[in-house]
């Protein structure tokens, strides 16, 4: 099971952010500048946009990006408003899950990636491992948090809170193969309507993370939305790293031994 987020129908209402916060009881976010203000007169907004969260993190599990891009063709209005509800990608090859030393991060029966809060000891290894910069540690709590894909809801056959709340069905929840077909059809439809720059992001199971459990239909390049263009799971290179480290360890032992052997001949 997973998410398909069709950004072409996202209206930036942030109902997903709110529903996520309410259902999962996620604490308030410090805002894009970290001011942590709750004063309406001094809203912490990103750039000239309506974005008051900035990015995904321990306290923001759904993040609606507001991009004001220049128009594709001159004379097509002043600005293209691109809105996209970002979320943990629930990668097929999830680096956070791979590097977690306690086994707090697990893959659930829905093939989603879930942090067990009662196991996590806040080592923080998952934070630099995530190629999308999604998971983070709550400073006051010490443990790592991210989107659970509403594991508590899905376990009982419910739709995740964000997808349930989305008024335009921009966020769709369902079996991934079904969502992929739907996304392909939607992409064709958009292409046929002349939206040449529409593209699917994280849909391909052959990409660097084995495909995302939460994938997107974007109307511009991923970087514009703050997404890495071609993320690669860091543990793909791990066997080579272990080999080199083993060789280095052996080299160290030999070097120390050699230092002694020559010492005896003197």
């Amino acid at each position, binding site marked *: 099971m997973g998410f398909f987020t069709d950004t072409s129908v996202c209206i930036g209402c942030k109902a997903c952010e709110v529903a996520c916060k309410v259902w999962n*009881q996620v604490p308030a976010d410090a805002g*894009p500048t970290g001011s942590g203000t709750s004063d309406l007169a001094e809203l912490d*907004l*990103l*750039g*000239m946009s309506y974005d008051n969260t900035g*990015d995904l993190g321990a306290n923001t599990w759904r993040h609606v*990006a507001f*991009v004001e*891009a*220049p128009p594709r063709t001159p004379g097509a209005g*002043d600005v293209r408003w691109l809105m996209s509800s970002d979320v943990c990608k629930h990668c097929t*090859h999830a680096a956070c*899950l791979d*590097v977690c*030393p306690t*086994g*707090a991060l*697990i893959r659930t029966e829905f093939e989603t990636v879930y942090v067990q809060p009662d*196991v*996590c000891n806040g*080592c*923080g*290894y998952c934070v*630099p491992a995530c190629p999308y910069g*999604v998971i983070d*540690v709550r400073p006051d709590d010490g*443990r790592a948090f991210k989107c659970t894909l509403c594991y*508590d809801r899905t376990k*009982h056959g419910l739709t995740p809170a964000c997808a349930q709340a989305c008024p335009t*069905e921009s966020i769709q929840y*369902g079996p*991934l*193969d*079904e969502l992929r077909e*739907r996304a392909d059809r939607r992409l064709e439809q958009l292409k046929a309507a002349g939206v040449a720059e529409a593209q*699917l992001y994280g*849909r391909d*199971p*052959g990409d*660097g993370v*084995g495909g995302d459990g939460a994938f997107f239909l974007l109307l511009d*390049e991923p*970087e514009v939305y*703050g997404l890495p*263009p*071609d*993320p*690669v799971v*860091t543990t793909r*290179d*791990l066997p080579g*790293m*272990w080999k080199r*480290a083993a060789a280095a360890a052996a*080299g*160290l032992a030999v070097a120390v031994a050699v230092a002694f052997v*020559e010492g*005896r001949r*003197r």
Partner: protein
Amino acid sequence: MTSGTPEPADKSRVEPRRKRGRKRIKGSMVPEAEFTSYYGRPILKRPTWKNPDIPVYLWAGGMAGTSSVLAVLADTTGRPALRRGARLVAAGGAIVGTVALIHDLGRPSRFLNMLRVVKPTSPLSVGSWILAPYAGLASAAAASEITGIAPRLGKQAGWGAALFGPPLASYTAVLVSDTAIPAWHEARDELPVLFVSSAAAAGAGAGLLLAATPENGPVVRLGAVAAGIELAAGKALEKRLDGLPGGVVDAYRTGKAGRWNRAAHVLTTLGGLGALLARRSRAGSALAGLALTAGSLATRFAVFEAGIQSAATRSTSSRRSASGSPAASAPTARAAGWRRNAAPRRSPAPDTCSIAPPAPHPTNVIRPARSATSCPRTGLPLQHGPHHLAHRTGGARSTTSAKRSWFDQRRTRALGELEPCPDVHVDHYSDDLEPFLLVEVGGHPLVDLLEILTRGSVSSPGERLGIAQSRLLRVAEQAGLPP
């Protein structure tokens, strides 16, 4: 750039900070590189590892690991003072390292969770399993050394520690390079050599500091050679990163990391030379040893800070080729210029493809796909065959493991699948909604009843998606959209 109210009138400021990274090379009409990002914000999260803790751990662990090997060899070659010093350093380093690691945890009281599983995909898990026995054995050897109790057991413990010492010194290189941070991940081939030579220099330095002159022959040689290798490995690392686009190497050359790096170079050079030149003088040896040890510490700080800087400064994952044509500034060409690599992709504007494909980005390159039939990110369903669906729906995973060999095997081993253990639950707030979901009314689960009552809003996901799709299509039709 925080503003209380949006100012739509100011059209010139509406554009996101797309031009931020654009610099012109002298004598060139072409922007050197164009960064596109979401308001200039970094994609990667800043590592939450605490500052003195982790670099100090890297240093102490390396020094201890080398020292325990020194201790057994000093013992067998009859150098009691060196053995004594090395055993104490090994135990001290292990204890300092362990304390630093535990202090770094967000929940230090849960440090034992580190030994909850054995996971080869997690360098920190492997490291915990190296450090735990190492710290015990090294401490036992040191305790026997100090108290004189059970010297034979102490000796055996020393041998045990020497077995775990070199892995303790080298696994930390994997620890930092197994991340998405470019300055760490891209240096994965050089870091093991750098870390091990730094560990050897620190261990030899500690030996020089503690052992008397007649016994210090081995540590003099080890220190000098280790210092040389450490400097060479540092150079090789910078050379490797220098070839990468995106200025990854700057993380090691600028800011705090740059300062630590320069300090490390000076100290290591002085220590290595000093160890050779002043080997007959006790004070000179001690000073050289101090310099070597401090140089190793500075190296660890440099690598750590480089990673922090690398994560924070990278606001983009792509960089346009510097050899782009001047037409690249036109909007359509710019769109084509965002093609990120040479892998086959949809190209909506083939006439603008004179722009050289940008060099692949260090961390985020498309590696050649495992299946020859797959076409990365074309959106074409070339590889998502039944094997992937089987993979996704679980259960049938073993049937696909031959095809997706390494990952799936590791994943299954690495607790990738949910275990029905009692500690899996959602959170531990007292007002958890889970009990609510389990409440039964008149023998029926409340949620099921609600579902019947509020059909349409809470129905089965499949049904709901069907509704969603038809609704979507209807809306699009009615609006006569370019959807």
